[in-house]
């Protein structure tokens, strides 16, 4: 029995209709399949609604709603992603080597999203169970309306951190221009440190957990 990895299927996005690419990814029969998507130039709605645990590598920049409703695919993007990447995601993972637009991981209920660059305003908007890691600066109102899950910010963040959040945990390494009054800083326990380490490892980021602070919403804590 051979353990040889399944060869990747290469799709040149410059030569292929976007809808057919999405259908190909969504209906992949082979759960161990791997796809290399080349020449991404900001196409919107790429890699939406994939249920199978396939691997997708994207070279180039992706547009709006990249990975919308992802439920199993492990996606690696060598470029930037537009607004609302990982929207309503429920499983799998998305690793973005570049920057992310606004509303990263909005409404995501599961899975993992890592961004090596910056994320614009409202990353983790209404986050509801997924894990999100942003290595560089995050824009205004990160964790807006967050309900559950983990939001790891590896650098500074603009004003309004955690505005309207009712649950979940925010890990912050740098400074926040302002923190929502409904958030309180809590002591990092071993379990928090362990969870943070795992998330950093998964995002491929090297950092010491002791440099982070933890924020959680106060109980019944609207502003």
């Amino acid at each position: 029995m051979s353990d040889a990895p399944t060869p990747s299927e290469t799709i040149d996005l410059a030569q292929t209709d976007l809808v057919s690419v999405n259908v190909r990814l969504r209906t992949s029969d082979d759960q161990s399949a791997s796809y290399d998507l080349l020449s991404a130039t900001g196409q919107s709605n790429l890699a939406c609604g994939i249920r199978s645990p396939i691997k997708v590598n994207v070279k180039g920049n992706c547009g709006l709603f990249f990975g919308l409703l992802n439920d199993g695919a492990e996606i690696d993007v060598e470029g930037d992603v537009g607004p609302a990447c990982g929207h309503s995601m429920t499983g799998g993972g998305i690793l973005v080597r570049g920057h992310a637009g606004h509303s990263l991981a909005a409404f995501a209920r599961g899975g993992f999203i890592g961004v090596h660059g910056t994320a614009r305003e409202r990353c983790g908007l209404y986050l509801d169970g997924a894990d999100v890691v942003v290595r560089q600066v995050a824009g205004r109102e990160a964790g807006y309306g967050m309900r559950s899950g983990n939001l790891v910010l590896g650098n500074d963040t603009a004003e309004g951190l955690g505005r309207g959040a009712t649950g979940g945990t925010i890990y912050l390494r740098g400074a926040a221009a302002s923190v929502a009054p409904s958030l309180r800083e809590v002591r990092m326990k071993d379990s928090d440190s362990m969870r943070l380490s795992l998330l950093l490892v998964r995002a491929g980021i090297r950092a010491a957990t002791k440099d982070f602070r933890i924020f959680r919403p106060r109980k019944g804590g609207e502003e």
Partner: protein
Amino acid sequence: MTHATSVFDELTFRRLGLEASANLRFGGLPSSAIQIPTADAGRTFSQAVPFFSRRSPIKASDALWSPFCGLMRELGMPLYALTPELESVPVASVPIRFTRRAADEGFDLLELETAEAIELTCRRNRPGVDQPLAQEDVEQVPTLPLELRSVDELNSLIEACRQLTDYRTPIGCALTPADVVTDVRAAIAAQFDFVLLEFPLNGKQGDIYDEQLLASVADAAAVIKSSPRSEVPLFVDADVTDSEALIILLAAGARAVSIDALIRQAIPAAPAASSVSYSSMGLLGSLGSSTPKPQADIGPIERVLKKLLDTLACRMMQTGARTMAEFDAGLLRGFSERAQQAARVPGLRG
């Protein structure tokens, strides 16, 4: 999950034969059917009667839920429900299912794939509440879900939903009227397949003679009619508790109206507790407590909906309207004194 699978099989099956739902028990009204064209030019969603339940007062945990679903199916009236709410419903009772995405909730893949129609809630941005970001960050469009900043983003979201539904499912927009003309125009421009006007309840019952309500419906209908996409149906969800009033809304320009308030009035009161307490009677007590609950009685709701359909049939015959498209405000004077009153509302066509 075998049961759930069979429910979804049934939903898939229903996609193929929606026209069949025109066979109604209560003096069916094939002419009262409405059509919603979808992005797939080869398919039109057909709804047998111009009524639907969107905020059903009967919940999935109620004893009446299953019979209610069965009744809705039998009448060909769509019901807004989530897939888990239908898992306990026998396959033969699963109605046409619409689903909606609230402005502060995400999407669900299963919902998108199995619903007959999808509604996205869009609401006017309230500065400092919905969009506390600086105004320059948000394109000045009145109808955008929370995570969107521009019409381009809204169009992309609609396109994504269309892809995930194979371009076969109508995607509509729910608006809370503020500036009806602007909002509906924006919704039409955004290529939504239907537009729903949701009138907030605010704890008070909607009054069909409230000029604002009727005029809003008439204005919205006029905007749609004068647009290049005049076939887009207008749905109205208002807290109207009277059959005649619902039909006046249809004449005012709505293509389908919500029956939730009507149902709420008709829900039978819970059976009164027995005057004899069995709790302290030992074996007899336990026998008493194991007595099956009385069968939920869907009769009163059935009668109210039958009356609604009969009234519509009667009004259509009275006015000579052969289809819902012909049933407009110009005919209002023909059918009742109350309708004549409504016909005086400025903005009603005819």
